[in-house]
């Protein structure tokens, strides 16, 4: 007697069952809140009560007319772009270094990874100490080496504070980008690089005309993740400056937090956070394109 096909054999049923909890979680606890966040931005809800009233575009009008919001929007862009440019430069260079063999390479790799490994908030508090207006070790070093004669009130000056934020973001993200670029470099077939050597291309020509183009998809992935991590980051700015001095270094996440959570104005908080979406949609689309591109492959 041949065994009958039971439920235990039905791949589609098993598949659905095994997928269901994950799908359910994602839909209920991500999808719904996401939709709800958008909805909230059109409401006048506050954290205090369960009241939910329709407010139309009032929240958006309010923030668009608010110079602090506009400044936060600008800051988000500046910090994201500034830090990612730095990251790309640092990561490409660091990947070249880590590709070579040299003594102490394992140790170097370990140290290089530390900024990425440490929790954001702890790194931020360490940097706060480093930038401290009285005890800053950076100031001491700059003064001791004769590179600076005045004094840098890092976290007290709007421009310097923004620069400090960019430095910290670049610092914590470039190890991650380095490892990705490194992996990309090692995925370039050895024979193609050797062919370029035999063809007579020197180090720079090889790098620019052969390796970098082949690295493009990988670098793009690193940049995309970097953009997401920087644009949506709250910890660094919150701990370093709290958005100050005088609301000059707010970025969208911190402002959303201040208005929406601390200020209990859920409607406005949601509206501010919604402005992050354009960043993220661009990223999602770009990643989709990249995924398709790398699947088809440029081999």
């Amino acid at each position, binding site marked *: 007697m041949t065994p009958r096909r039971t*439920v*235990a*054999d039905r791949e589609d049923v*098993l*598949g659905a069952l*095994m*997928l269901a*909890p*994950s*799908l359910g*979680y*994602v839909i209920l*606890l991500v*999808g719904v*809140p*996401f939709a*709800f*966040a958008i909805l*909230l931005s059109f409401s006048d809800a506050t*954290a205090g009560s369960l009241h939910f009233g329709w407010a139309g575009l009032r929240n958006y009008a309010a923030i668009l007319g608010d110079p602090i919001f506009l400044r936060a929007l600008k800051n988000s862009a500046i910090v994201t772009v500034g830090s990612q440019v730095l990251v790309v430069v640092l990561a490409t260079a660091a990947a070249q*270094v880590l590709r070579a063999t040299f003594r102490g390479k394992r140790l170097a*790799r370990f*140290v*290089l*990874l*530390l*900024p990425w*490994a440490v*929790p954001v908030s*702890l*790194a*931020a*508090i*360490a*940097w*706060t*100490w480093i930038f401290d207006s009285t*005890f*800053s*070790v950076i100031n*001491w070093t700059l*003064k*001791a080496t004769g590179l600076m004669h005045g*004094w840098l009130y890092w976290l007290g000056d709007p421009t310097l504070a923004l620069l400090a934020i960019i430095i910290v973001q670049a*610092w914590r993200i*470039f190890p991650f980008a380095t490892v*990705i670029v490194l992996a990309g470099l090692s995925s370039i077939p050895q024979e193609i690089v050797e062919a370029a050597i035999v063809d007579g291309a020197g180090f720079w020509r090889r790098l620019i005309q052969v390796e970098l183009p082949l690295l493009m*998809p990988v670098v793009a*992935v690193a940049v995309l993740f970097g953009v997401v991590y920087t644009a*949506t980051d*709250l*910890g660094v700015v*919150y701990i370093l400056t709290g958005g100050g001095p005088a609301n000059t270094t707010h970025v969208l*996440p911190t402002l959303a*937090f201040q208005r929406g959570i601390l200020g209990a104005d859920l409607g406005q908080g949601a509206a501010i*956070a919604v402005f992050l979406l354009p960043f*993220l949609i661009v990223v*999602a689309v770009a990643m989709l394109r990249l*995924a398709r591109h790398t*699947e088809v492959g440029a081999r």
Partner: protein
Amino acid sequence: MKRVALYAAALGFVLFAGFPFYWMLITAFKQNRDLYVGATDLSHIPWIFNDPPTLDHVKLLLGQTEFPRWVLNTLVVVVAVVVITVAVAVPAGYSLARLVGRWGERLGMGIFFTYLIPPTLLFVPFSRLISLLHLQDSLGALILIYPTMTIPFCTWLVMGFLRSVPWEIEEQAMIDGLSRLAVILKVAPRLIVPGILTVIVFTFTLVLQEFVYALTFISSVDKMTVSLGVPIALVRGDVYHWGALMAAALFTSIPLAIVYNAFMDRFIQGFTMGAVKG
């Protein structure tokens, strides 16, 4: 010549990446009078121990602050979230890789993209949800919310991982007479172990690093996690106890760094969607 440039560059990067940690290390063990010297004083070198190192800050951290409690809280949350994530994401990843066919790939990607939705957008509706469930200011809020970050990415990780595991072994088991379900329960686990390991490690690191949700949902000092408590609550009055603060930062960073180093390749595979071999 090229060799010299290489070492110089390597040194530069290592210094840039590492000096904050060295600074953490020094601060944690420096006596206060060696620590709190204005940086305008050029005669005092802050980079070295001018007075012998001390364990005072560490003792303060472990004995007079809530730090041990935060470690405990963090561990509780980690274990709970790891269990939930493994239980939910591993079967889902398996399903998407083996059972669901072509639209499984699209669905998997869709799930992955929810990972990109930032906490700073979702915390607004979440705060309402948490208060509705009376979970505010509790670890339960974190245990409920953290999987929203880990499940999408880990499902994708397992799915990508399984694509590189040849499925002949499972096929062979089916030919040998096991039902599909039996294959899943008996044969597959051994194959997925490395993937499960990566899921556990990723979840562990994510919980340890998470700050935004903790900041949003937790307000009592004794309920905080390490990532939240250290920067926010290690303040007495208006005074930052930098020594203790840096000691805490150091103790938390080291295990994470070790773990990250060991698992970096796997993570990269996950991030680059397997397009690049780690």
